[in-house]
């Protein structure tokens, strides 16, 4: 495949716009359900998703990726902030208000064993979107479901089968068919392949890739490391403890990461080109991820950062763009403009 011409970033209004998004899960104790604290799962996110692009979101387990996904699909009620879809504020829409929006925003789930109801047939599962939205597709639900099954590479004759009769990869394809049934604009995929065998992961990722081209989809793909989304993302957001620490074009992020955390994540990705392995030392982060109940003051990464200084412990760095199209939240960014370009440049993704 060829790398298509980059669309002019400012040419179109973003499909999805997120401002100051916050989700705190209250911790309640005792019979009286008194709130004793909160899990600050998502703690102030600003980003947008442009039509037709794939935004990759990475971060360690527990950093709030799924919570972010469930907020923008409005499966969770945000604590604060604003979500706009095609310019329309959907932050606090209820079940009924969201229903028409559901056609445009769909989700692919992480666990293919828990995302399909074991008591429903494939036909029922993939046909549910039509029933719930009160839509009769051309040619009837059954025909449309069979078309969708074929689209995701399944045998349309398996319409009457139950989920337990399929393998993990096939189940994930069923989940994809369900998500695509209503011809959504935006698809949020929460670790769509992390539960699958490595040998099948690539097939499913490629399927998503092909479908994007075929149907003109916009993706937000969540992953816990950079290797899965490496090739499919146009832009990548790196999350740490409920915050975005770096957000940049894929090439820029891979070749000139600015946030120390991103550098550490990248160092863990196996590099296919042996010539480059020399350049990238494996950085092992010391310590555990701090608890999202009481995140560290200042920069949340300072407890594990090898570049941390006094200012990092007190002042929270803001998400700024030292380079066009490359945002980072760090007081001492690496590869900042003015510093020498890294030697590894130019090898392509």
């Amino acid at each position, binding site marked *: 495949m060829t790398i298509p011409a980059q669309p002019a970033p400012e040419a179109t209004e973003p499909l999805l716009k997120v401002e100051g998004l916050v989700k705190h899960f209250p911790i309640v104790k005792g019979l009286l359900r008194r709130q004793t604290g909160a899990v600050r799962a998502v703690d102030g996110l600003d980003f947008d998703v442009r039509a037709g692009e794939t935004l990759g979101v990475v971060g360690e387990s527990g950093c709030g990726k799924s919570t972010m996904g469930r907020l923008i699909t409005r499966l969770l009620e945000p604590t604060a902030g604003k979500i706009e879809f095609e310019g329309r504020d959907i932050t606090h829409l209820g079940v009924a208000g969201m229903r028409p929006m559901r056609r445009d925003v769909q989700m692919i789930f992480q666990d293919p064993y828990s995302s399909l109801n074991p008591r429903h047939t*494939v036909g029922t599962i993939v046909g549910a979107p039509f029933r719930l939205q009160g839509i009769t597709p051309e040619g009837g639900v059954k025909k449309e479901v069979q078309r969708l099954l074929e689209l995701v590479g399944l045998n349309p004759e398996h319409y009457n089968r139950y989920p337990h009769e399929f393998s993990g990869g096939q189940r994930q394809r069923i989940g994809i068919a369900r998500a695509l049934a209503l011809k959504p604009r935006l698809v949020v995929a929460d670790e769509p392949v992390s539960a699958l065998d490595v040998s099948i992961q690539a097939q499913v990722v490629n399927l998503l890739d092909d479908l994007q081209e075929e149907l003109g989809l916009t993706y937000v793909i969540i992953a816990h490391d950079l290797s899965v989304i490496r090739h499919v993302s146009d832009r990548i957001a790196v999350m740490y403890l409920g915050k975005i620490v770096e957000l940049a074009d894929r090439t820029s992020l891979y070749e000139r990461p600015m946030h120390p955390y991103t550098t550490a994540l990248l160092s863990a990705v196996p590099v296919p080109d042996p010539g480059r392995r020399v350049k990238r030392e494996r950085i092992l982060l010391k310590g555990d991820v701090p608890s999202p109940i009481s995140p560290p003051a200042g920069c949340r990464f300072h407890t594990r950062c090898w570049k941390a200084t006094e200012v990092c412990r007190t002042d929270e760095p803001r998400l700024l763009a030292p380079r066009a199209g490359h945002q980072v939240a760090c007081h001492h960014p690496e590869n900042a403009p003015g510093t020498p370009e890294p030697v590894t440049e130019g090898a392509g993704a």
Partner: protein
Amino acid sequence: MTAPLHDTGPADAGAAPVTDGLPAKAIEGRSPWRIAWTRLKRDKFALAGGVVVLLLILVAILAPVIVGLLGHPPNEYHEELIDPLSSTPKAAWGGINSDFLFGAEPVNGRDVFSRVVYGARVSLLVAFLAAVVAVVIGTVFGIVAGYFGGWVDAVVSRVMDLLLAFPQLLFIIALVSVVPNSLWGLTGSGVRMAVLIAVIGFFGWPYVGRIVRGQTLSLREREYVEAARSLGAGRLYILFRELLPNLVAPITVYATLMIPTNVLTEAALSFLGAGVKPPTASWGQMLSKAVTTYEGDPMFMIIPGLAIFVTVLAFNLFGDGVRDALDPKGSR
């Protein structure tokens, strides 16, 4: 998206699902129920239990026919069979012969066979309907507590704890003594049965409720619930279309295993005089009568005892089989 992945061929995404294997034989899906049935058929004990359960149900339904063919009316006295001195049947073995298949009752010589057959009616009817009452109340409260959580769950759970700690046998005995002779358009034994069903069912629902609540708590976290919500499903759709179908199996299992417990409770209450009113036959009542004559006529104690034993055993074997068939890994 832009670049390809390293390790895939052209036959990939659009291809038939040979990729991660599954022979494309029978296209009709094997539903979880069908699979359970296949497993149940292989379980000899469960099948034997099931056959006996079916026979018992037939006996209860066809009681008048069976008694008409093989016995004497259940309240017909045959004092000529009774030795006036000992009050027990004159013949050996409690008077068992081809005419009185299970012998004659002490004192009045009623046909024990007919009374056991009619006793099955009372026993099974009370046990079944009480289980239905328990399942309906338990499912509703369990699902609501589990799905909504929060204070609703807290209240329902405390009420269940309270009921489980309640001395139900004593309560029922006390209640029966104050129940009027006619109630809800029923009279005599009908009233007693209705009260038994209501009360046994009422004290049984927390057991069902706890199971349903626990299952709902874990089911509501499944991603298919989120998937339904992301398609615009409301609460009722999720409760009835997504959750309930997954609760039917555990509820069925629990209901089947609840019936034998109810049979025992009904027998105990009848034994204590809180069951159906004489002359309506019931197994517990027969046992309590047998206590006074068991030295002279042990058969009269053994036969209703066996009836209870066989019924409870058959339901338990069947229920265990149903549980294993629906849940082969024993994951509960």
